[in-house]
């Protein structure tokens, strides 16, 4: 949370600094070369981002089996992957644009299940049960973005942006598991996970930068680095778990301006 706030502050500061640079009174010396004007009002981007970080999480719950407490540990491996990203913005004042972005991320998640299942006949003789479950994870993030546009020349446009994000996270959560056992019950074998799909929403933040190169008046390509972050609360066997969404993403795609 702290790092997110710091990053946001830095980028906001960068935006402010850039704004300040635009409004500063010119020094009594030869005028610097004029920055190219921004003639367009509408800006669109669409492309693919690669999520660098993983959003793994673990739950450790007490389970009741055979009149004794056991343990169920579920570790969700939510690795990186490709996300679809699109945004649109409108220039509202000088170099300031307001816009909306959308990032959609979807991936398979491998959940490792490590359980200690009490013995039916004896206290304190749990059996280890391990298994895996392949579930799904999807994230849809809508970003409200304030963008500061910095034209480098007529073809190149640098954009710095930030703002709140609204995350919707869908995740397959392992609620329980089945196992097979037979006399003398000294071992038990994982058979399947009992999972449910949960969907939760949360508000977070997003910041980032984009460099676009327009090879015509309206069409170009660009690269983006974006950090977004949100935390949703999901119901897990132990109660609730904080599940992180978003992360550091980088990629590129098409850029349009009108």
């Amino acid at each position, binding site marked *: 949370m702290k790092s997110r706030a710091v990053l946001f502050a830095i980028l906001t500061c960068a935006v402010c600094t850039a704004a300040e640079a635009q409004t500063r009174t010119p020094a009594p010396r030869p005028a610097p070369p004029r920055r190219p004007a921004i003639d367009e009002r509408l800006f669109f981007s669409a492309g693919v981002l690669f999520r660098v970080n993983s959003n793994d999480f673990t739950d450790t719950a007490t389970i009741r089996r055979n*009149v*004794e407490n056991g343990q169920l540990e579920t570790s969700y491996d939510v690795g990186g992957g490709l996300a679809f990203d699109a945004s649109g913005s409108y220039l509202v004042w000088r170099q300031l644009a307001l816009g909306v972005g959308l990032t959609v991320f979807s991936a398979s998640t491998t959940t490792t299940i490590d359980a200690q299942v009490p013995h*039916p*006949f004896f*206290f304190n003789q749990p059996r280890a049960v391990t298994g895996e479950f392949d579930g799904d994870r999807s994230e849809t993030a809508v970003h409200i973005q304030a963008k500061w546009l910095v034209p480098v020349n007529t073809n190149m446009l640098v954009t710095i942006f930030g703002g709140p994000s609204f995350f919707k996270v869908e995740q397959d959560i392992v609620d329980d598991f089945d196992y097979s056992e037979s*006399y003398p019950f000294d071992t038990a074998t994982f058979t399947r996970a009992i999972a449910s799909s949960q969907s939760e929403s949360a508000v977070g933040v997003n910041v980032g930068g984009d460099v676009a190169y327009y090879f015509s008046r309206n069409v170009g390509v660009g690269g983006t680095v974006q950090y977004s972050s949100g935390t949703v609360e999901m119901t897990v066997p132990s109660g609730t778990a904080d599940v992180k969404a978003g992360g550091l993403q980088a990629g590129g795609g098409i850029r349009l301006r009108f």
Partner: protein
Amino acid sequence: MKRVMAIAVAAMALFVSLDVGSAQQGSRLRFNATTGGDLRTWDQFVTAQERAGALRVRQVSQDPSLPSRTVERMQQYYQGVPVWGAEVVRDSDRGVPVSIFGDVSTQSDLDTQPGITADAAERLLLSRAASGATLLRPVTLVLLLRDAGSPNLAYTSVVASANQVFRVFVDARTGVEVLRYSSIRKQASIGTGRGVIGDTKKMAVRLQGGVYLADDLLRPPVLTTFDMRNNLSRALNVLFGAPLFVSDIAADSDNSWTDVSAVDAHAYIGWTYDYYFKRHGRRGLDNRDRPLISLINAVSQQGALSLPPDFFDFAVNAFWCDDCGPGAIGVMFFGNGIPPAFTQGGQNINPLAGSLDIVAHELTHGVTSATSNLLPMNEPGALNESFSDVMGTATEFFFQPVGAGIGQADYLIGEDSFRAPGGGLNGIRSLVNPIAFGDPDHYSLRFTGSEDDGGVHTNSTIPSHAYYLAIEGGRNRVSGMTVQGVGAANREQIEKAFYRAFVFLLPASANFSTARAATIQAARDLYGASSTAAQAITQAWTAVGVN
């Protein structure tokens, strides 16, 4: 046409039944096809039956763990009449069969015309139940597949009355009942109970009708503990063959058991079964999971005070009776002891089921009965008792922590039930120091009178002491000979040698000398002629004066 087709299908069934993976039993055909050639043959058979209408898919399901698989469950029909219990299950992966299991009738000349109507059958079914009975299912005409002989044309329904629900079949021509079974499935459950020494242990029980019964559904054999509810006459009748009922089974309403005898008898019999299975690979009394039946609470502790002397054993003793119980099923019995304020021989006597070694001792008598069947008198009888003490002790060491306290593994017999107030001797026999209880620790001191069937309990300590010496080592008090034992960490070797000798090698009339030779031979068989175990056992027998 249907009949011709059925005959053709049956002929085909007979043909393919010669293939691997099938078994023709009278008019019944069972097949298990899991490999290429078999699968093709049986798939053709099933498909032909399906087309002929002799098999009809009654359920298609998918196993979520194998999403590409489809399982078809097909019911056999004969001239439009379902053959009860005749099914084929075909598991296919994207249409390609992976396995086919079937059990069908091949009978081709059955008459499917009933002699009585469905209404008459309904009246018959209801008349066989208590008043107020109802049918939970419509009356259906079926061909009932039997293990032997032709399928019966029968009417069936589910009859509910009082607290019972049965599926009943009556012959569709004569109205005679041909089969019934309960529709209520027993539910295994795990309970907890506090035992004689105040420890909490798990109990494998059965939930039925909202009540938990001391009937273990998890271990392979029938393992049921019956509560005689302080009715000695009832206990005697049961021992002499009177039937036992579900209402006799020890019960608890909340599965948190408080009857200490029920808890310990039921749990410890299970533990002893486990010991034999895990240590020796043995399946219970006869290695074929003979039922493990025990009786408790024949006499309350208070009731013991007014027992005639001849019946006092029902309070302060435990026993195995091989020929007792309904159908001579074999029964273990555990007395409840006497009130805590009283002593006998300077000892309090708590419920005997509270001692794991006593429970294992009695169960081992059942093992002996099913194996060497050592005669219950003189030296064979002493060996019989000794083997029970040895296995009782071995079971303690298998499950309990080693120590001299209550609920700990030691070489005393019955120490958790027979407690001497004020620090006296606990238990009834000692394998370490038999003389402490007045029992011989050397052959030269053996009892030679006729009491106790020739001193079977007294003299049992001679071989039992040899067992102890073979494990722990030490010096025999009488001979002065020192034995190099295998050590506690290797006790399994001596347990297995004694088990092999007493279960497999000894004749019924074996004496101590034979037992010596057999246990040494067993150790040699298991661990080699010059093994530490063989040497320890040899030294131990010599030390106790048995050559």
